[in-house]
């Protein structure tokens, strides 16, 4: 995408104000600042591992292989690493999201058939800014605009589950393979669960007042931010999100460090290992009432994995905590009748369990 070029998804009803073209010198200045920032970020990032080992074993003088030493090295290495990754990705996603407003996503999805619509909705769920408290207004907006129910659900499942914080943490702590697995299976569940809900023809289980509603949204201003505003949105996202979750990251890593140093190897194998078949459904059930964000849960997950818990079980637990949250279910009850709520929990829960079993079998 070229800076300053208008995007091609347009609202003919509104009159968008074209972004004033940036002067070339300003663009070059921005590009150079971004590159210098990235280089500095990378140089710092590379120093974290040597520093943590220097800090723990030279500066504090702890014996290598000691429990306290291992716990402290883990903490001193992982905390800055995860926070640095978080800042970088949240900033990039913040800028990316300035291209996708819920209004625009709705316009793309309205009138799409199922299947294609489900895939598109799950993908848009990743990049459209979404906060769980707008789940209900968003649901109403989608359904009244003619977005099929199943497609709406694909969006509502993917948006919280596949989030940038979860991906960053999984990548930083467990490597890109686990992060890619999470992204792939999260999308898959959103697509298939939404499609299934669409097949079940449950439109009459939407509360009546929603179905009777006619909304004209064409008078909402369609904003076209300038590049400076887009970068500003990245900065706002970092301040908002990192400012909110850093404490959970630090606490999560502290708990993880404790498990790392003090819980014996293989301890989790009997409870959350591959052989305990009941551990997958148990992990999903335990996850529903827990409403933690990804930031707090991933470091704990990493430590559990290190002590013999099976990857599938742990992923199922994480997905359940993030995607099926009690507060969101309570709030969705305002627009959905109990039957549809039950189907939603059942379909998504089953999908998560299947993913859990699948990974326990193949890995």
């Amino acid at each position, binding site marked *: 995408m070229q800076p300053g070029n208008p995007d091609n998804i347009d609202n003919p009803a509104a009159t968008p104000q074209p972004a004033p073209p940036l002067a070339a010198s300003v663009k070059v200045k921005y590009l150079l600042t971004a590159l210098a920032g990235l280089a500095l970020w990378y140089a710092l990032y590379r120093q974290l591992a040597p520093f943590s080992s220097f800090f723990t074993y030279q500066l504090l003088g702890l014996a290598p292989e000691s429990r306290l030493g291992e716990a402290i090295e883990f903490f001193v290495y992982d905390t800055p690493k995860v926070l640095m990754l978080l800042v970088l990705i949240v900033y990039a996603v913040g800028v990316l999201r300035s291209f996708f407003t819920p209004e625009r996503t709705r316009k793309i999805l309205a009138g799409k058939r199922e299947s294609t619509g489900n895939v598109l909705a799950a993908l848009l769920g990743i990049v459209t800014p979404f906060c769980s*408290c*707008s789940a209900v207004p968003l649901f109403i907006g989608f359904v009244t605009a003619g977005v099929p129910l199943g497609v709406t659900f694909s969006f509502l499942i993917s948006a919280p589950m596949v989030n940038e914080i979860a991906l960053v943490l999984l990548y930083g702590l467990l490597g890109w393979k686990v992060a890619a697995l999470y992204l792939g299976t999260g999308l898959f569940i959103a697509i298939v669960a939404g499609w299934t809900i669409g097949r079940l023809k449950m439109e009459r289980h939407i509360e009546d007042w929603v179905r009777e509603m006619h909304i004209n949204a064409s008078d909402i201003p369609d904003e076209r931010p300038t590049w400076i505003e887009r970068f500003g949105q990245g900065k706002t996202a970092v301040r908002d999100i990192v400012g909110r979750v850093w404490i959970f990251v630090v606490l999560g890593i502290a708990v993880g460090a404790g498990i790392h140093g003090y819980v014996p190897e293989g301890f989790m194998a009997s409870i959350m290992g591959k052989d305990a078949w009941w551990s997958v459904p148990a992990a999903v059930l335990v996850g529903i009432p827990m409403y933690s964000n990804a930031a707090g849960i991933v470091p704990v997950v990493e430590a559990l994995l290190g002590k013999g818990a099976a990857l599938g079980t742990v992923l199922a637990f994480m997905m359940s905590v993030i995607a099926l949250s009690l507060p969101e279910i309570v709030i969705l009850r305002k627009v959905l009748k109990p039957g549809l709520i039950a189907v939603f929990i059942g379909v998504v829960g089953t999908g998560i369990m299947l993913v859990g079993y699948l990974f326990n079998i193949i890995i």
Partner: protein
Amino acid sequence: MEIKVLGPGCPKCAEAEKLMRDAVEEAGIEATIEKISDFQQIAKFGVFSTPAVVIDGQVKCVGKVPSKKEALAWLGK
């Protein structure tokens, strides 16, 4: 002037309401500020990402907390 802040009650919605109150005070104008958290009413404005600000029946912004500068501009300052 009649200002409505639409939002179900998340921290951002509270922030938007506070910002509008500050802006009105700074602009020194007469205005009523009402917080609307009922989903049915929010939907009637055609708004589906919150928080949103409506001034005299016209939707001014959706899905974000406005900046002080924007808010003052809406109030004619």
